[in-house]
């Protein structure tokens, strides 16, 4: 709906440069609900999100998948909203909504015109405490999540393999259980399981409101107090102390075979420390290590295995320090035809050993740091991503200060620290090595 059309010459947007943490305002409501506002006034759009400090790793044993199941059920109506009415209302405003579940969080979001923020808050605060569920729709939605598991996991040998790898990596922590759930437990999930999880974790003192876009912090605060501020805190909110890993003393190996595998590969995961409040230096070193070993064309693994030895199609290294409890550092090598997985694994180990001896290439480290500095500029073009970064960090035990100090910590990490962090993490006894291959190759 357009108000007017003007022809003019060189009329640009009026915009004031905003930098780094100046974009972000945060405060806490009286009931304990944390609020983060990320400003971007270039377009009249807002992303409204509520993050709960509860994910699949907070589930009780025996009901795996219930956190994700509940996420689906939150679209099934409340005392005042019919099933499906939430999304239909968002759509009627030209908006889009969805939700996602991970190990450490469950989050709900809508992307709408900025002047529709109040309606979003009204509906989202309502379903924080007022969902209404019937037995029949529970069963239909259980079929939906089982089809979701079929799509994401059962139809993908790579996903089945990763699921088995995770289960072997963690002896005692719930990170070893898939977010979507084990199929046999998903098939038994019931109304009471979902409501129990809801009653335990869905409360303002366990939630974070994040609003990003064309909004003023004062206006967000007034609305947040009106809609979320009136919900009583849950005095019985349990402390987030999940079962922790015992010392791991044995390297584990697995071979996963599936005739649907077209491209075999070897992958290794090591248990690794995560970012902790006020203590992020080692995680910063591991983040840079991941880039050095696996970040693109000039990375160590690519240079050695793909360019020099010509034995890999692809190599990679991953580490994400945003995790409430211990996370993993992962290496992968996809060999070219004719190179066995044993040869690929040996070459990967040799490349890492050589790196530990020769240390960090100073120019490579500087290139990576340059890209991290630039990422802070590029990130301003998409405040939704920035909002996501805050949500993931705050639900993983970090503070606003930790998030804002992180870029500077990354810039200050030295090559020596990176090698020291690598030596500490690359302990075989903490690792799982997996081979993914097609059945026919196993019999050879």
């Amino acid at each position, binding site marked *: *709906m*357009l*108000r007017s*059309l*003007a*022809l*003019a010459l*060189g*009329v*640009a*947007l009026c*915009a*004031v440069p905003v930098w780094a943490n100046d974009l972000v305002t945060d405060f806490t409501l009286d009931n304990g609900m944390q609020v983060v506002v990320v400003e971007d006034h270039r*377009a*009249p*759009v807002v992303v409204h999100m509520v993050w709960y400090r509860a994910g699949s790793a907070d589930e009780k044993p025996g009901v795996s998948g219930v956190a994700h199941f509940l996420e689906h059920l939150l*679209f099934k109506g409340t005392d005042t909203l019919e099933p499906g009415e939430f*999304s*239909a209302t968002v*759509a*009627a*405003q*030209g*908006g889009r909504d969805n939700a996602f579940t991970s190990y450490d969080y469950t989050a709900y979001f809508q992307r709408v*015109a*900025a*002047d529709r923020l109040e309606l979003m808050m009204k509906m989202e605060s309502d379903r924080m405490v007022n969902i209404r569920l019937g037995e029949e729709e529970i*069963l*239909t939605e259980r*079929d*939906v999540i*089982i*089809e*979701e598991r*079929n*799509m994401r996991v*059962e*139809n993908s040998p790579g996903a089945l393999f990763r699921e088995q790898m995770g289960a072997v990596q963690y002896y005692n922590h719930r990170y070893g259980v898939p977010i979507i759930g084990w199929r046999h437990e998903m098939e038994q999930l019931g109304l009471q399981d979902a409501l129990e999880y809801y009653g335990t974790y869905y409360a303002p003192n366990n939630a974070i409101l994040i609003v990003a*876009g064309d909004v003023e912090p004062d206006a967000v605060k007034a609305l947040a107090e009106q809609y979320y501020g009136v919900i009583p805190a849950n005095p019985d909110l349990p402390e987030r102390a999940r079962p922790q890993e015992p010392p791991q003393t044995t390297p584990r190996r697995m071979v996963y075979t599936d005739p649907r*595998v*077209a*491209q075999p590969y070897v992958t290794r995961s090591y248990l690794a420390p995560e970012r902790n409040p006020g203590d992020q230096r080692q995680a910063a070193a591991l983040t840079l290590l991941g880039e050095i070993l696996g970040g*693109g*064309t*000039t990375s160590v693994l690519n*240079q050695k295995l*793909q360019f020099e030895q010509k034995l890999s*199609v*692809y190599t990679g290294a991953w580490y994400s320090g945003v995790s409430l409890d211990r996370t993993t550092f992962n290496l992968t090598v996809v060999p*070219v*035809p004719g190179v066995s997985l044993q040869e690929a694994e040996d070459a990967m180990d040799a490349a890492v050993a050589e790196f530990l001896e020769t240390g960090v290439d100073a120019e490579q480290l*500087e*290139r*990576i740091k*340059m*890209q991290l*500095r*630039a990422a802070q*500029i590029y990130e301003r*073009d998409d405040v939704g991503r920035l909002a996501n970064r805050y949500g993931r960090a705050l639900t993983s035990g970090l503070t606003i200060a930790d998030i804002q100090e992180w870029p500077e910590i990354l810039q200050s990490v030295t090559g020596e620290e990176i090698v020291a962090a690598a030596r500490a993490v690359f302990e075989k006894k903490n690792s799982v090595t997996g081979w993914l291959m097609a059945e026919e190759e196993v019999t050879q």
Partner: protein
Amino acid sequence: MMRFVLSFVALMAAVPAMAEIAIKEVTSPGGIKAWLVEEPSIPFMALEIRFKGGTSLDAPGKRGATNLMVGLLEEGAGDLDAQGFAKAGESLAAQFGYDSGDDAVAISARVLSENRDEALELLRLSLIAPSFPETALERVRNQVLSGIRSSLKDPDKIASARFNALVFGDHPYGSDENGTLESVSALSREDIVAAHRGALAKDRMYVSAVGDITAEELGPLLDRLLGELPETGAAMPAQSAPQITGTVDVVDFDTPQSVAIFGQAGMHRDDPDFFAAYLLSTILGGGGFESRLMTEVREKRGLTYGIYSYLVPKDLANLYLGSVASANDRIGETIAVIREEWAKISSEGVTAEELDAAKALLTGAYPLRFDGNSSIANIMVGMQVDDMPIDYMVTRNDKVNAVTLEDVNRVARELLDPETLMFVVVGKPKGV
């Protein structure tokens, strides 16, 4: 020297909040046209370049040449080898994307203001002077072959490959744009050079830029970046006449969940009924939770995690496609429900309430797309490729709102054809 052909301010209203997007059409001294939005608040620029034709330009027997060529653009250029090129790009924190599709080659760049000229010189080298070294050719060829082998065992990829082969036959749309194991293995460096010469030419080029740059700066910049490209490229491929026959084709593949692609004839973007068809497709199977197919297949019956159907107006053919996945013992019921809904909406039409809701969604969502330099650059280049006028974004919502219930229901009768709706199912489906 700059020549302003047209300068233009579109006032986008997200009812009632408003943002202004000032699009300028710039013509460089060398004659390269581009759409520009100056947005100096963040010190970087997003640049989008499209070359029409894409992988459908592959010469006979050279399937996969364009795809492999585009994959090689950043693997050696000028005096730089692949490592040298990557290191230079990393040092500048420039982000380049090289992508090919069956209608276009897409080049994307995001460059910082502080080193814009150096970054674009690097991009220029990759577009104008790629060296296609033999070592890189073998390395990237192996990556493409690995991808092709994976596609042969991926149910989604198997389904689209089979569907395209049945519908498009010998036309380029009918085969995998990555090529086959045989065709890619046989490609020579000369084939890659020829594909480059044929695909990246000025007579099929479209450009947009958004960010920290002025119209005065952009013209000379485009001449330096793109001025040396050849004026003309390979002959454009012919239009295709899709063959859609209402069959259910099953590809046997041992996996627990069957994947289905379904489709029928679509509609050209320039058709006067296009917006009526777009509203119809939103109601039937649009992206949200409230479409008829999502309601009937997922919400009421729990038969799938997601089902979507949409108009696919391509440069050389127009289709109306959909996709769904259900467990092998439930896919039969899913297909029956889809056929029922297809027939029902065709014969009974939609309600006034459904049409109002779809209009509210489409008109409300449209201004929300223009929310960042990269997204605006993408939209603007797409508008040019589709030959839309520069004021399209001002009139677009009016066109949506002008559609009547009678229009939609007439189009539903004329367009939707449950008899020819064709399915390809990959899996071990029961009762199909």
